[in-house]
């Protein structure tokens, strides 16, 4: 039987992206939409927005995370299969920015889930989002390598589980 990690080698380099608004002003969200539209056309790199986190490699998070959205964001993060990369789009998700003091915010995003790529700007330009996505690819390849190495170093555990 083939080991599960073996499939990582055939993991495609095109990223599937899931976007979650955790309380942003939509400014970043429409820039994400602009990124997939013909002018910036991120689909030429094989990236596309998907409708469910279970199909995604990358999670885009915007906004400073409200109390209401915190458990939802955690659940979305848990549903994305490993290896995964989290990108924060926009200043308020990165640091809180103008929303620095409130009774209903639990952010910034790295307070709730681990973050790999920060894209700054309020909102960031589509070009900046594409640059962030390029960094996410590098990060994902790194993770893939580590996972494969980890599998090579501890084959006994995996084998026990597989049989």
């Amino acid at each position: 039987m083939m080991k599960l990690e073996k499939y990582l080698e055939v993991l495609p380099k095109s990223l599937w992206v899931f976007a979650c608004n955790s309380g942003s002003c939509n400014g970043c969200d429409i820039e994400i939409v602009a990124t997939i539209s013909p002018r910036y056309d991120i689909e030429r790199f094989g990236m596309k927005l998907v409708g469910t986190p279970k199909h995604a490699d990358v999670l885009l998070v915007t906004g400073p995370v409200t109390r209401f959205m915190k458990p939802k964001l955690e659940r979305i993060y848990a549903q994305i299969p490993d290896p995964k990369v989290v990108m924060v789009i926009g200043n308020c998700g990165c640091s809180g920015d103008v929303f620095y003091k409130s009774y209903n915010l639990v952010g910034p995003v790295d307070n709730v889930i681990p973050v790999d790529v920060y894209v700054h700007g309020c909102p960031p330009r589509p070009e900046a989002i594409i640059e962030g996505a390029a960094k996410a690819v590098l990060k994902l390849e790194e993770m893939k390598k580590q996972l494969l190495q980890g599998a090579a170093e501890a084959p006994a555990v995996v084998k026990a589980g597989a049989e």
Partner: protein
Amino acid sequence: MASENVSTYKLPIGPVHVGLKEPITAWLDIDGEKIVNATIRPGAIHRGIEFMARDRNPIQVISLSERICGICSFSHVTCFVRAVENVADIPVPSRAQYIRALVLELERLHSHILWAGVACYSIGYDSAFHLGMLLREKVMDVLEAFTGNRVNYGMGTVGGVRWDVTSEVDKTVREMVSFYRNEFDAFYDVVTEDPIAKARMRGVGVLTREEAIRYCALGPTARASGIRCDLRWSAPYEAYGDMDIKPIVPQDYYGKAYGDVFDRFLVRVLEVYQSLDIIENVMDGLPEGPLMWEPKLPKLLAHLKKADGMGWGAIEAPRGDDTHVVRLTGGQENVTWWKVRAPTYANAVSWPLMFRNNELADAPLIINSVDPCISCMERMLITDRSSDAKQVVSKAELLEKCREKTRRLMQS
């Protein structure tokens, strides 16, 4: 309604949804494919902005009000500064009034085109969505050339605006107007002439005139129901005082207002043409003069510190009228209290009415039809009350359902 042995299903949509611009939860009671009742639960992105404003002075609140909504950011800024100008009795120079009207109309253009594109996307008409988004980039370029930003322009300030219309900007804006006059017809035709698009939108999500009045619907949602309301007409502000603007209602064009999604589409698309006319008027009538009442910030802040009283700003944002109320207390630097009512706040009240007796496949379209301020539905949970069995339908499946209906119509 369901009898004892026939159960209705309770179906949450949201809070995270690809077709929505704002995380919002809608609980739908469905009987088979039919929606019997709907409950809306907002609150996913309540950031407590009004509470934050208490620690900031009016100039600082401007950047906060700009980030209430990234699509109609300048509308919120204008509304807020108008309220403050009311309290402090600050007259706005006429050139600044015209520039405000210009940016408001540019914003309306990009917002309406974005909405029309997203509406096409939710019925599975992807080519129209991409066409719409491509057309929208033109106005985004103009906004960027003018203000330096694509979104959250940083244009408004108390007593005026911060950037001037230069001869280059004038040229770009006029070029944009003629571009849309030539190109936008194509988009209008591919959607309104398309029998499938019409079949998906006509008769769906109806809000009658009487309901629209009682539930205080606003903007294009109310106008699609036949209410002749437009603050630019009934309570002119800024440069609109010099213009003759007529509210756009479907009965003037098609003889009758149905109040359905198609009418909302029509009103918005026709308003794009109206905005082009207004932009041209603004550019032609642009008076000379200063940009700000008081360009020196410390002096302005000192004046605002002395101001005491309450002000109310109400302007016609792309989605309907936007209301800001501000209270300043003499001797205090900060805003004492501030209340914001974004147009969707009022339009969401009439959502449950629009859902009634519609098919589940139309739900994403109906939610989008009032142009709620984008984010996304991730999955929904179908709970069968009788057996407590749970079946999870993903958001992808619901959108597929919405698109499947289009395919069905195409075959028949």
